[in-house]
């Protein structure tokens, strides 16, 4: 991983001129279980994704990252309910589509690589068959020879020999399976690829390979990617902008340089301090004491208040609103109240 604080993002500025692909507004998601009060997994989330932009989504385990991503694609488990908000994809609100219309959007426009995707491939069907299924579904006018050629090209793109398309997932190593997933995610030329911690189950060497592959593909194909991760190094390397979540809400949202060089929310600052940085002497590494809040038992005020080093009285009573600090930098903390534009 390169040093986050000096990483250069030459195309970051230009990204802001591109058209907006995905516009998520005020999205709130609950998990409703019979014998408990609803868990507020995601609350009033706003972000945009432009063509060719890579957005990093970071936050501790359980802060609602996967829930948010599944919500965008309307793939939540039965207990998950989208209670408010809108998801505009190229101007169309995905939440207002019929199920059949949504099935058309899935994979053709937005595809997703799942967290720890070891079992994300069907064990009784060949890799090529599973990739081909997506092509046949969304590009129905191709004949079987064209589908076959496309499967080989996709596998080639991720560095898998085309003749391994007739093998089954168990004949692939973990890293190859994840690369096959990536090939499958690209099968229908989607505008957006969601990658939900695509490397968690892999060893470090393979992780690096997969990340490099994704970075190259992104540049080559001009993809928009939402990259969900714990790894701030990955964020620095790949992303244009970063959304930091805490307990289901936005803590801070800005472009990557701002997040690394001038973070304003105490949670972002703590996260960066907890991240091993080779430019600082070892030993300064700290972890944030305490645990994220339970979603069905939230504190009355700011969700980060119980762990915040800069907490004061008001934090425990009121939920801070989201302050806009400049054009593309928002954070939710009372400390920033006076700076809002």
């Amino acid at each position, binding site marked *: 991983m390169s040093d986050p604080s000096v990483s250069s993002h030459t195309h970051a500025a230009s990204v802001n001129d591109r058209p907006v692909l995905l516009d998520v507004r005020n999205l709130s998601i609950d998990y409703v279980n019979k014998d408990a009060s609803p868990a507020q997994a995601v609350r009033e989330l706003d972000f945009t994704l432009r063509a060719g932009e890579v957005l990093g989504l970071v936050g501790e385990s359980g802060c609602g990252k996967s829930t948010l991503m599944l919500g965008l*694609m309307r*793939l939540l488990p039965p207990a998950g309910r989208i209670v408010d908000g809108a998801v505009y994809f190229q101007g169309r609100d995905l939440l207002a589509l019929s*199920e*059949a219309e949504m*099935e*058309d*959007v*899935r*994979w*053709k426009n937005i*595809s*997703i690589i*799942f967290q720890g*995707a*070891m*079992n*994300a*491939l*069907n*064990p*009784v*069907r*060949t890799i090529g068959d599973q990739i081909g*299924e*997506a092509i046949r*579904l*969304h590009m129905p006018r191709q004949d079987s020879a064209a589908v076959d050629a496309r499967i080989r090209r996709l596998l080639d793109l991720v560095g898998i020999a085309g003749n391994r398309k007739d093998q*089954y997932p*168990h*004949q692939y190593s973990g890293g190859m399976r994840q690369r096959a997933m990536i090939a*499958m995610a690209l099968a229908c030329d989607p505008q957006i690829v969601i990658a939900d911690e695509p490397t968690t189950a892999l060893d470090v060497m393979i992780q690096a390979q997969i990340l490099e592959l994704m970075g190259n593909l992104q540049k080559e194909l001009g993809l928009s990617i939402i990259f969900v991760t714990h790894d701030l190094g990955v964020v620095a390397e790949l992303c244009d902008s970063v959304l930091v979540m805490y307990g289901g809400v936005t803590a801070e949202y800005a472009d990557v340089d701002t997040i690394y060089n001038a973070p304003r929310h105490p949670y972002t600052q703590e996260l960066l301090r907890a991240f091993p940085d080779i430019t600082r002497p070892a030993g300064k590494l700290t972890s944030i004491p305490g645990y994220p809040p339970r979603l069905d038992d939230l504190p009355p005020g700011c969700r980060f208040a119980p762990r915040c080093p800069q907490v004061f009285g008001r934090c425990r009573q009121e939920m801070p609103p989201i302050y806009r600090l400049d054009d593309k930098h928002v954070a939710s903390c009372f400390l920033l109240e006076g700076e809002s534009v």
Partner: protein
Amino acid sequence: MRASYLLGKLAWALFTILFVICLNFFLFRVLPGDPVRSGVRDPRLTQEAQQAIRERFGLDKPVINCFESLNPVKSGPCLINPFETQFFLYVRNLLTGDLGISYHTNRPVSTMLGERLWNTILLIGAGQILAIILGMGLGILAAWKARTPIDFGALLFSLLAWSLPTFWLGIILLFAGSRYFNLPLGGMITPGVNFPGAWARVSDMLRHMLLPTLTYTIVFLGEYMLIMRSTLVDVLSEDYILTARAKGLNHFQILKDHALKNAMLPMVTIIALNLGFTVAGAVQIETVFSWPGLGGAIFEAVGRRDYPMLQGAFLLLAVSVIFANLGAELLYSVLDPRIRAE
């Protein structure tokens, strides 16, 4: 599929059959009692007549070695010709398809089993096919509508069907069917009737078949439904199903192309095992409905101490269980690529 895998399975099945043949042979030789005395049940039988019967059935020959018979154990001079033993004769006859002569009817066991076997296959084949179709259909429906009233209703019905005692269900159906629908009380065909044509004969048989088949279907349907439902519910919660949804497949495509093939794996095993036991017949059902099948034949043979008949029936049963298992394993390896590769 790899040839060595197939050959290995086949060899193992053959070995098991050989083992069963030996076991089956000795099992009946260690049973207490003299089959001639108890089988013929006529106290006035002279010694000469008894000896004649022994010779007729080969029971005068030593079982396998110096022992005249295993029970009672008695040693004698060891001048035995191994080709004159009961075991050798048994195996030799077996290879020519001769299962011996029934003590009771004096007819070849293979003929008697053959007559009964087809009746059983007819009844139980029909029942199994119906149970598989209905049970799997109901299981798929319940899994798809999991945790809804439809699922609950299907579960309740299946649990009930599964736990009903077979003979009780049979008697109730027999009673209701003959009382309200004028269905025959038992047997396979109305005796003493000259049927005007083939169709009249078939329809008479179908009327006889209806109730036992229905009983059999209900008994097995519950099991199939419960297993189908629970495996399918498990499969539907797998990651690859979420992938399939994310790919934009609709409910029906997910079920057809991703869930069912995985959910079929346990079903195949259970169906194959049940089919193996088919040959034994549904003893209870065949008894309640006086169906002239194998189950009934075995039941009667036990009462008559008709050892050759029992021995033949047991062998048939064991061989069919072994072949059903073999079939299940081969089918399994077609369905599951992970096994094929091993």
